[in-house]
């Protein structure tokens, strides 16, 4: 085994991950704050007024990163779930548990900002088109995951059941992503494409990307913070947590 692999395996143990996460949190918090300030400045003061949609369009700088993030987090959770089922690592279930509330929040925000935007754009808060519906399903999947985990008492059982639900639900993500292509609906098609030209103003694009990274950093910071609490709670009977707490008390 080469040394890098060993290193990764060491990190996947809660005992080593806990202090590592603790060291990372301030870094990502600062990155999140700084990027957020830049992105907000760019999007509200620098980006030009849209000729068609007026000032209201600026909500896009929140809506789009948040919508992306809500899908991305689910995929990450499913990834952790797969790792957890295959390698039986304790940390992976804790990670997906820590990610879920943030994912649900972003899913909710994407619906909410979308709805806010829909009122001026489409004249209604809500339509039952494919993109919107599948986004709503995503929120339900998050809530279902949280509900399932809290309904099962035995934590190991809850972890594995939750992991299976995540893997089954991941099918919704491509549906959200491609919904605008598969059904012709009110919702905007992809403007930023993996290949080829984007049809967007350069500053707008940059502002949006920075906002995306800000949201990203925020997620990492919050999730690391949350996973630390979960680790402490789950591992409270292990010797390393006991010594840790005793040291904390002594100080």
């Amino acid at each position: 085994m080469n040394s890098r692999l060993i290193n990764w395996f060491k990190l996947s143990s809660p005992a080593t991950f806990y202090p590592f996460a603790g060291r990372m949190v301030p870094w990502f918090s600062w990155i999140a704050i700084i990027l957020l300030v830049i992105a907000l400045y760019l999007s509200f003061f620098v980006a030009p007024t849209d000729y068609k949609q007026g000032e209201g369009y600026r909500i896009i700088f929140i809506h789009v990163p948040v919508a992306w993030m809500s899908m991305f987090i689910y995929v990450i959770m499913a990834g952790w779930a797969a790792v957890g089922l295959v390698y039986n690592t304790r940390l992976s279930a804790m990670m997906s548990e820590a990610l879920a509330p943030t994912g649900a929040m972003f899913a909710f925000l994407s619906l909410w900002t979308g709805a806010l935007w829909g009122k001026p754009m489409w004249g209604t808060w809500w339509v039952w088109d494919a993109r919107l519906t599948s986004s709503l399903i995503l929120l339900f999947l998050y809530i279902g995951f949280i509900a399932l985990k809290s309904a099962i008492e035995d934590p190991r059982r809850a972890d594995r059941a939750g992991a299976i639900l995540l893997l089954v639900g991941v099918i919704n993500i491509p549906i959200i992503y491609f919904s605008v292509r598969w059904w012709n609906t009110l919702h905007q098609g992809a403007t930023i494409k993996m290949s080829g030209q984007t049809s967007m103003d350069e500053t707008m694009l940059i502002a949006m990307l920075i906002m995306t990274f800000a949201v990203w950093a925020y997620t990492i910071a919050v999730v690391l913070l949350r996973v630390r609490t979960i680790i402490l709670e789950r591992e409270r009977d292990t010797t390393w947590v006991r010594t840790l707490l005793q040291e904390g008390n002594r100080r």
Partner: protein
Amino acid sequence: MLDIFRTLLWRDITLAMRSRADLVANLFFFIIVVSLFPLGIGPEMATLRLIAPGVVWVAALLASMLALERIFAADYEDGTLEQMLLTPQPLALLILAKVAAHWLVTGVPLVLIAPVLGLQYNLSGEMLQVLIVTLLLGTPSLSLIGAIGAALTLGLRGGGVLNALLVMPLTIPVLIFGAGAVEATASGLGGIGHLYLLGAILLAALFFAPLAAAAALRISAE
């Protein structure tokens, strides 16, 4: 007498609270059913507003039934029901306590969330108000009537569905007046007459349903 009522009420509410997911889930079931229809029917607002009261009421009915179908099942399986039959108190009273607990944990949240769902369907403020009042008057009746069916079909395999079959027809008046009141308001006719009828049904159900369910339970438990 009141002591036993309170004990049982507290017990059932505690049990429901312990599995909090249960509570939330019933609510979400309601939300999901209401949200399914636009998917099946298509997104035209005019059609949707037309069917909104009906959809909300049908969903409320289904959510009640689904949660209700097993109201006695757990007690039957673990033997608590036998013990309830051997209680030195009228069985009807115990049943009333169970139904009350059931309504408090499943019916009330449903009534509270309904206006939000109504908004999705673009209902007016007045219609929303009437919708809430009809649900407040109607859902306890649903719970009471459902209890009779649940008692009748206790211990049968697939009792849940059979129960729905027996009880649904009895709940239809509630559904008609409930949805009717909202529609009457929408068309400017005023739904007050419907509301009185709903109230009358509730009173009748409060009196007769526990007695009928008690009789049914004694038979099913044998």
